[in-house]
Structures are given as C-alpha cells and as structure tokens.
C-alpha cells in the first residue's frame, strides 16, 4: 500500500515534473504571503515586510532545489540535463575532447584486452567440473631445480602411496599417420593412462571412454577423436563411432568423439587420444605428463607436502630416484607458468600503466579546465545549485568522456586481442577461448565508471569547493596561480612521468633482448633451406634395409631437381620440435656422473646433413659412403660436446656413446648451433650416420633458388614413390626462426607502442601544465618584463621549473622500473632486468623529449607583451 503510494509519487515527479514544480512554487508563494501578512500586521511597511519574509524563508531557489532533491527521481531528470549539458560543453572544445577521448581509449582498450585474455586463459581454459582441484604433477630435478616430466614407475609408486588424490593419470605426446582418408596426414595426439577422462570428469559427445579391458596391452587399439578432427577429416559422420581408422598402419576402433569444447592444454594440440603403452623403465625415462584430481577439501599445499615426503622416501629406496623430488601445481597456475603467462603479465602491467597515465593526463586536463571555469561554477552555485549538484554536473562530464573513450577502447581492445591470439602458441587455443561474457561486460562498464570518477572526482571536488565571493570578484585571471592547484597539477605530471619511465624501461629491456635474439648466431644458415617432417611408418618400413632403400631411391631424385644444392635426411632438424636426449659416456671414463650433467642430444643424420643445414666442420671429416652398417661405428660431435666431456683434449678417435648404445669412434667435430632456437644455448651434440642407425624423421633441402618453388616437385616425387607417406611441417628455416621469435617480437612491439604512447601522454601533460601556469602568470610575467627581467631569463625559469618536475618523476620512475623489472625476468634473453644501460637511458630519453615539449610554453612565457598584459588592469 505504502509502496504503491511511493511509486505513484515517483511516477508523478518523473512524468508530471512541470506540474509538480508549479505546485511547489505556488506552495512557497503562499508561505511567503502569510509571512508578509504577519509582518505587515506587526507594523512594517509593505516593502520591508516582503524583504523580511524572504529573509526568513531563506533563498527560494535553494529551498525549491532541496525539495526537488527529495523527489528521488531528480537524479534521473537531472542526469538527462547534465548529460545534454556535458555534451554541449565537450562539443564546444573539440580539441580537448578528442585528446581526452583518445587518451582514455588507449587506457580502457588496453585494460579490456588484458582482461579478455586473462579471463580466457584463467576461466575458460579448464572446461571441467571443479577445475580448481585439478593439478599438474612434475618431477623436480634437485640439481637443475627445473620441473620436468615424470616417469611411469614413479607415477605408480605415487599412486599407490598417496592419500590426497581422488584420481591420477599420466599422458604422453603421440604422433601417428592417418591413411585411408584421402592424402595421408601426420596427426598429433595424446596417449592417456587409465582414469584420464574420469579424472577430468567429462563425458564424450558420442560413444564411450575406453573400458579397463581396452587399456590392456594387445587389445588397446582403440581411439577417441577430437571434435575438430572428426569434423575436418571424417565429415562429422556419426557412424565413425564403432568403426576403425588406420593410424600408422594399425587399425584402431573409434570408441567415441569428445565434445567440441573439450580441450586439455598440454603444450600441443590433440586430434585423438589412445591408451598409453605401459612400459616398465624402472624409475627412469621422465617423459610423461602427470596430472591429478585432489580429493575434496585437500589444498594444493597439503598435496605438495605429502608428495615431497613420498619422493624423499623413494630417494632412499631407489637409486634412480636420487636427486628427484615431486612438485604439485594447480593446473591453472601451470598454464600461467609458461611463457604465455609471463607475456600476459607484462601485457597487464603495461596496460595498467597506460590506463593510469591516461587517467592522470585527463584528470590534469580537467583540473586545468576546471580552474578556468571556476567563475561559471560560482555563478551556478549563486543561482541555487548545491555543491552536490555541481559535483554531479562535473562528474557527468568526465563520465561522458570516459564512456566515449570506452567505446573507442572496445575497438582497440578487439584489435589487441586479435593480435594476441595471432601470436599465442597454437596449443593455447586462445582464439577459441576468447569470447564475450557477462563478466567482461560488467568489467568494461565498471572500468569506464572508475575511469570517469578517477579522472573527474578530484577536479570536480576542487571546483565545487571554490569560494563564492572570491571567484565572483575575480575577473577570471589572478595575479598568480593558486599554489594548491599548481601543486596538484604538478603531482599528476610527476606521476605520469614516473609511470612513463617504467614503461620505457620495460620497452628498452625487451628491445635489447629482441636485438640479442635476432643477433644470436644460430650456428646454421636460415636462407635457402627447406625442411619438412616425413617419418617412415614402421609398419611398412619394417627394417633398416627398407628405410635405407627408400632413401637411396628418394635422394637422387630430389638432387636431380633444378636448383637443388644438397639433400639430407635426419631424425630431427633445428626448430623442428623433435629431439632426444641421453646421458653420454666416454670410453675409459667413469660413467657415474649425475644424469643431468651428462645429458647430450643425440641425432641420426645422413652425410650431407651438415652441408645442407649449414653447420661448419671444425675438425676431422663428415660421414661418407664408407660408413656402412658393417663398417666401424663412427660419430661426429660438436664443440659444446668436446667442452663438456673432453675438455682440453683432442676428441678425434676417442670413443663415446649415448648410454645403452654401442661405442662409436669420433671422426669429426662440427660447430655449435642453437638447435632449439635463438634463446637456447648450444647443447652437446652427438651424431651417428643414418647408414649405421637408419631412422628418418625429417628431410632438409638446400636450394639455389627460392625454397618455396621446389615444394611442389618434391611432393610429387614423394607421392610417386610412396602414396601413403605423409609429409608435414613444410617450412623454410627462416619461417621456423620467425615463428620461434614471434612472441618476443610481438611483445616488444606492444610494450614499445604502449611506452611511446605514455611518453607522448606524459610529455603532453607536462607541456599542458606548463602552458597553463604560464597563462595564469601572464600578468606577473608582464610585470617582471616591464621591470627589466630578461626574456631569456624568464624562459629559463619556465624550463627550470619543468626540469624539476621531470627530475623528480624520472627518479621515481627509475626506482619503480628497478623493482618492477622482475616481471620481465623470464621473458628477457641476454639482458638482465637491471641492465644499467637501459635503466639510465630510459629516464634520459624521457627527459630529453619532455624538455623539448616545454620549449613552446617557455617561448610563450618569454614573449609575453608587458603592454598588452598591463593594459588589462
């Protein structure tokens, strides 16, 4: 009943505003009449009576306004008015408006992009029930301190003894060739242990998971397919389930299709899942990904404690476990530990800086403008506007600005997100994870409001606090600018400069790092080199003979192609993603050294491999036709191998081997190369000739003509030789290198762009404040010049006061950059976060630009015309 009455009142106030207002005026008029009548009765004359009545009631306009405030809908009607008014004010100074909107757009846009990406990576990357209970389990090598893959036997012991996990599972990277559906294709998948899907808690879209029986060796030729693969290669036919597909020559029965949104981010994409091979390697072979689902109520830290304890027990029990610990990390943190996470963090830091500087900049613009508008505001208050009302009006203006900025920011955010999706590694599936969400919309609106309040509140409070009489009396130009106002402006400018220095330092560090990466000597040539993956399926190339025969047929045909210089086959190529590591042993030396310390990469190559890739021979010879299967086993090592295993010795004719293989005589030494990419150091390498250990994974071609032009003929030759053979990863070495450096390049461009932006904003802000102070002090300056002050002296004084601000801001910024540099640590290559050159250069660069920006206000201060100024008196 009461609510109804209240509602009726509100509606009346809202829609019959004019009538309600006229009633109010009438009501107050009646009161005045009564008062006047009473005064007349007391013997006053008519004029005094009316005046006394007015005095007693107080300001009519104020009372009316206060009554209107109580209608509770006034904010609505007034907001409409305020917005219209604010819009008119912004339209009146398009330059100011455009500058503020663009500035805010960058701040809001960058923050929105970061939020979108963070939400994608943190909230949507784990589409499983209670994802917080999912953890990754690593083996930790005590000596190296690195998190590594786990071993099967370790896993089994963990599983048997722990009490913290509801389920555990392990997985292995897996590749197979699909045949029988058009061109053969090399697929990437994952082998999973029993309980993997149950651990994640997902249901297949169609079909079912593997039964326990199907995961026993011998009967485990079953496969689950990804939705994407099923759509792409199998035409989304439902009858695929229950039928067989041929993977690497072996028929696999399809038991189910995973849902479209199923993704388990494992640093590679999966087209299929098969049961894992259970092999007892003892406590060696750390090559599996370990995962677990915590029991309800168990914290990650508690699980970590128990696992560490178990690992300590195992160290005592098994020799191979010595030096190995276990590490439990929530799956979400594990994703962010990657380079992607660090990049996101840097992006976020940069975005926050841009947003803060944008807010500071617009705030100082508004503040300077607000001081110039103090007279207008004083008049408003004299006309009956309360302080709250004035505050609201000014806040409306800044909120309108931030809203306009946000609209432009959304466009920028969209572009930035697209950029990020483009450079993120494919396994993150970032593109599929990014989406519009209600929380994103809420964040955008909240951010916009916060930005508006952040930029507008202070200037508005200042303006609303203005003292009436002073401002009315003042002709709008005071002799000297108010100390408090200038101090606030200065504070904002100092803050902006400090933040700009931080970002400039970041950009400098990333640029230097990128320069190091691009300058890094890879050790092989990147031009005119084409590589592709072509594993020979063991089902059809059953023995060494078959493999060698195929190569002997293929090689001459490839070499005969026009423009071909040399052709090589190997088990891996630089940046190809395949590598195998083993402990290395030297004959006659004790092999009891720490496994990790004896680690080396070992590889199988044909004789022309080094010439084709472009790795120079330093000593001895390369493999040749004489190194047949029946001849003496030989090897070639690189200089890093010699440094590590045979320091100061002549490596030639020494015998060495990867653990568990046969001894080989070292016949040559080659130069070092960065096999895993420009940011990795050269590792010890041990090569055996393909003729003595046949295994083909990759083919490399050096050409005299552009590499791309040979792709077609090469494919044709291979298809003629073996139509079932799949080739993939066809790319030039330059493409591989570009891909490997894509992330640092994108990050440098992004942070560099943001740094330039903040540099521009902060110097513009500084110049604006200086120009404002100069214009406020025109009369003082005019007086000084009239009294004989030199013009250059005045200009110098302006520059000096600007210099003070720059120095303070730069010092704070340099200190901030020193402490914030840690964020970058994992993304930097060949440069430390505390690189002295960058730490010094960034503030100096900023100071130089900032001083230049102050030349204009200094000039205008020096060219004040004393006559013109004094005439205003």
């Amino acid at each position, binding site marked *: 009943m009461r609510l109804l*009455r209240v509602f009726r009142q509100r509606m009346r106030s809202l829609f019959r505003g004019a009538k309600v207002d006229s009633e109010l005026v009438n*009501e107050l008029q*009646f*009161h005045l009449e009564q008062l006047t009548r009473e005064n007349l009765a007391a013997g006053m004359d008519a004029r005094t009576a009316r005046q006394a009545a007015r005095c007693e009631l107080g*300001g009519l306009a104020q009372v009316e306004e206060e009554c209107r405030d109580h209608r509770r809908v006034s904010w609505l009607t007034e907001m409409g008015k305020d917005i219209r008014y604010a819009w008119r004010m912004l339209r009146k100074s398009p330059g100011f408006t455009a500058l503020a909107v663009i500035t805010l757009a960058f701040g809001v846009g960058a923050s929105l992009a970061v939020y979108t990406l963070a939400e994608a990576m943190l909230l949507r990357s784990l589409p499983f029930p209670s994802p917080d209970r999912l953890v990754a389990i690593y083996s930790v090598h005590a000596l190296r301190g690195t998190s590594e893959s786990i071993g099967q036997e370790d896993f089994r012991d963990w599983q048997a003894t722990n009490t913290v996990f509801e389920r555990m599972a392990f997985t292995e990277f897996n590749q197979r060739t699909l045949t029988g559906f058009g061109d053969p294709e090399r697929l990437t998948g994952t082998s999973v242990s029993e309980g993997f899907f149950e651990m994640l808690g997902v249901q297949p879209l169609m079909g079912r998971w593997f039964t326990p029986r199907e995961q026993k060796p011998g009967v485990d030729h079953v496969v689950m397919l990804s939705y994407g693969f099923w759509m792409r290669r199998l035409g989304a036919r439902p009858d695929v389930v229950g039928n067989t597909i041929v993977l690497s020559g072996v028929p696999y029965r399809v038991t189910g299709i995973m849902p479209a949104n199923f993704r388990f981010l494992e640093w590679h994409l999966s087209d299929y899942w098969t049961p894992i091979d259970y092999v007892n390697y003892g406590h060696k072979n750390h090559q599996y990904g370990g995962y677990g689902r915590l029991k309800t109520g168990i914290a990650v830290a508690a699980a970590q404690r128990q696992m560490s304890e178990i690992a300590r027990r195992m160290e005592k029990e098994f020799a191979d476990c010595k030096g190995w610990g276990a590490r439990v990390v929530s799956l979400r943190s594990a994703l962010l530990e990657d380079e992607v996470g660090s990049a996101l963090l840097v992006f976020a830091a940069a975005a926050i800086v841009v947003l803060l500087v944008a807010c500071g900049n617009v705030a100082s613009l508004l503040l300077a403008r607000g001081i110039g508008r103090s007279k207008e505001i004083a008049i408003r208050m004299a006309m009956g506007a309360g302080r709250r009302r004035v505050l609201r009006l000014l806040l409306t203006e800044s909120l309108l600005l931030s809203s306009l900025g946000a609209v432009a920011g959304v466009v920028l955010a969209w572009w930035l997100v697209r950029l990020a999706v483009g450079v993120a590694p494919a396994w993150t599936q970032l593109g599929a994870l990014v989406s519009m969400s209600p929380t994103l919309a809420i964040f955008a609106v909240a951010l916009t409001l916060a930005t508006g309040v952040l930029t507008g509140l202070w200037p508005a409070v200042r303006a609303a606090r203005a003292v009436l009489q002073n401002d009315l009396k003042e002709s709008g130009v005071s002799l000297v600018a108010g100390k408090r106002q200038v101090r606030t402006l200065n504070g904002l400018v100092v803050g902006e400069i400090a933040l700009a220095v931080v970002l400039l330092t970041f950009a400098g560090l990333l640029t230097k790092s990128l320069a190091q990466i691009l300058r890094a000597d890879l050790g092989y040539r990147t031009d005119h080199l084409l590589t592709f993956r072509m594993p020979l399926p063991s089902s059809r190339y059953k023995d060494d003979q078959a493999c060698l025969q195929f190569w002997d047929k293929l090689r001459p045909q490839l070499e005969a192609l026009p423009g071909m210089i040399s052709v090589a086959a190997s088990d891996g190529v630089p940046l190809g993603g395949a590598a195998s590591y083993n402990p290395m042993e030297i004959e006659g030396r004790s092999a009891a050294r720490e496994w990790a310390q004896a680690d080396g990469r070992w590889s199988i190559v044909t004789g022309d491999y080094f010439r084709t890739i472009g790795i120079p021979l330093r000593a001895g010879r390369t493999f040749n036709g004489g190194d047949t299967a029946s001849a003496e086993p030989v090897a070639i090592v690189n200089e890093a191998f010699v440094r590590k295993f045979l320091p100061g010795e002549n490596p030639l004719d020494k015998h060495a081997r990867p653990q568990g293989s046969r001894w080989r005589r070292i016949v040559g030494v080659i130069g070092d190369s960065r096999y895993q990419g420009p940011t990795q150091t050269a590792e010890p390498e041990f090569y055996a000739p393909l003729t003595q250990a046949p295994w083909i994974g990759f083919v490399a071609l050096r050409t005299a003509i552009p590499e791309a032009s040979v792709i077609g003929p090469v494919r044709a030759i291979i298809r003629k030789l073996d139509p079932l053979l799949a080739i993939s990863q066809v790319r030039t070495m330059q493409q591989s290198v570009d891909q490997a450096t894509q992330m640092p390049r994108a990050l440098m461009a992004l942070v560099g762009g943001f740094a330039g932006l903040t540099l521009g904003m902060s110097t513009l802000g500084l110049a604006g404040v200086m120009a404002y102070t100069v214009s406020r002090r025109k009369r003082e300056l005019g007086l000084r010049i009239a009294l004989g002050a030199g013009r250059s002296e005045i200009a110098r004084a302006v520059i000096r006061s600007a210099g003070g601000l720059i120095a303070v801001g730069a010092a704070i910024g340099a200190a901030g950059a020193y402490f914030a540099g840690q964020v970058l640590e994992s993304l930097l290559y060949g440069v430390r976060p505390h690189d002295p050159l960058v730490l010094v250069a960034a503030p100096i660069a900023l100071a130089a630009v900032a001083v230049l920006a102050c030349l204009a206000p200094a000039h205008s201060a020096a060219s004040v015309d004393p006559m013109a100024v004094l005439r205003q008196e």
Partner: protein
Amino acid sequence: MPKPSDLLQGTLDLLILKAINHEPLHGWGIAKRIQVLSDEVLAVQQGSLYPALHRLEQQGWVAAEWKDTELGRQAKFYALTREGRRQLDRELASWSRLSTAVEQVLERA
C-alpha cells in the same frame, strides 16, 4: 523574549507528523502550530520545513491535497496516511525512549 531554540536533529519529522495528527494543515499552518504549541520556544526553520514535508510525502507518510483556505486562496494541505500514523507511533516511542534516557542521565549524574 528569549531566542527560539533550534530543533533537535531529527525531531522535525516527529513534530510535523504530530502537528497534522488531528487535521490536515498547510505548511504555514504546521509551522505556526508547532510554534504556538511549544509556547514560542520551538521555531521551525522555514527553509527546512518544505524539504522535510516533501520528503515525508515521497516516503508515503503524508498525503497532500490542494484545498481552499479560510482566506479563499488555494493551499497545499498535508494529512497523515495510515502508514504515517504508524510511523508517528514508532517515532513517538523512540522519542520517549530518548527523552527518558536523557532525563535519567540528568537526574542521576
């Protein structure tokens, strides 16, 4: 004549509700009534009376109606609503609690 006391914070609503308890009154009448009933001790700040009336109206405690005054001029008369009466009871109760407490302090201290 001593200067009229300022109204205690928050008692204005109570006085207004009480003043119109028996018959609807216009703003001027309410001010006069409070002044007379308090033997000229309490003077309603004229400037704060109308905002208070409008607030009470918006909250639904009082209802307003335009009626002719004895002088033949239209004026806005305020009357208590049923909810207003209940609100008055509540305010009276809280007022007596407050005044008893104050008295107790004054007596015992």
